[in-house]
């Protein structure tokens, strides 16, 4: 899936824009309001969808090699979070949807990808 397509479907605005050369292809999405769940995921090349806004979201994204963070529920992260994101080169977007709504919005895209790859939806 294209990162830009995900951003478009979520109608998300960039808070920390991806740097030139940032991977444009995304393999999966990890939606969670608990950092522990993100840390425990086995997904690769994924984007984080979360309502959390602390700098720890960025730390977790860094540790798990996440390709970006979309903050849901229209929350504005503190400057410390954006600063950490810029430092770690983790792009951050904000969308006004609830976490569940954002998953629903992305469901067709993920299903399409899985059908293409012949992977049964989990």
């Amino acid at each position, binding site marked *: 899936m294209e990162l830009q397509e995900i951003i478009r479907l979520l109608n998300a605005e960039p808070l920390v824009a991806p740097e030139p050369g940032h991977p444009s292809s995304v393999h*999966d*999405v*990890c*939606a969670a*309001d*608990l*950092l*522990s*769940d993100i*840390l*425990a*995921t*086995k*997904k690769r090349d994924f984007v984080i969808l*979360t309502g*959390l806004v*602390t*700098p*720890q*979201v*960025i*730390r*977790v994204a*860094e*540790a*798990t*090699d996440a390709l970006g963070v979309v903050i849901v529920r229209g929350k504005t992260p503190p400057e*410390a979070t954006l600063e950490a994101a810029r430092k770690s080169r983790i792009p951050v977007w904000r969308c006004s949807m609830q976490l569940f709504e954002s*998953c629903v919005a992305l469901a067709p895209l*993920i299903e399409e990808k899985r059908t293409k790859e012949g992977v049964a939806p*989990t």
Partner: protein
Amino acid sequence: MRMRIDPVTYTPFHEALYDLRVRDAMSKNLIVLGPEATMLDAQIAMRDHRISGIPIVIDGDKLVGLVSIQDVIEALVANDIHAPVGKWMTEKVYTVREKIPLIQAVKELQKRGFGRLPVLNAEDRLVGMLTNNDVTRAVMLRLNEEARAAEQREADLMARSMSATQERPGIERIEIRVEPMDLDAAGTFAGLVKKAVKKRGVSPDVARRAAIAAYEAEVNVILHSMGGILEAFLSDQDITILSRDRGPGIPNVDEAMKEGFSTANEVVRALGFGAGMGLPNMKRCSDEFSISAPASGTTVTMKILFNPPSQATHQENATEEKT
């Protein structure tokens, strides 16, 4: 309490007296009366609250006088115990400001032979009372704190020298000390670990597992312990992450290793932690894992091989999410 400040016998006790402010020592739970109360009221209040003087206030906290036991006795002798306190109270009251060093107030108490001093804030409002007992208690508490801090420094030094003995040639070592609840610092250790393993050209999977194991350990020490030391030892073949904290240990390690088991409080959960996945996730990310958690402190050791024989083990063990 007698205290002569003599440079020869200058002790931590005196140091605390200079260091503390009046507001650190004063009693803030005040028993006060209005000028319309009787001397009998004052006597009863003193008896009930076991105090030897009562500030007389108007408008809640504007000090207009002080009634001492001496005043009550004089009223009794004059058979005037039902008179308003306004008649018998001492109107010219010595006061101290809440922000002055405690030593100054102590000198005032001694010089004037007072048992107590009303404490005023910058707006001339009564905010506390200071007695010799208050002074002693505050200084003792401070000395106790300092003794504990000294013990802690000693323990840290010991831990540090222990670590030094583990230094071996050809081993790269990373060390971070973490303080309880210092969440701003969380991720520092994991960042260093990730950078160090990446420099060795390991696979992204290995780098990620090392970073996650380091991060979970770091967050655990910050959120659940009284602080500790995180270390990583990198050889050519592997990285060993060692997390040691100062307690309080884990009463039941088997319970803590179960996914979903958590002792996290609401504050921790609001920050996005406390899903009860930390320890199991650390184990999952490691090729070797051990934990011991007596009350004196938890020690977790995790080894991650740079070239694991089969990465499938980690894939199989990973949590499957429903999206």
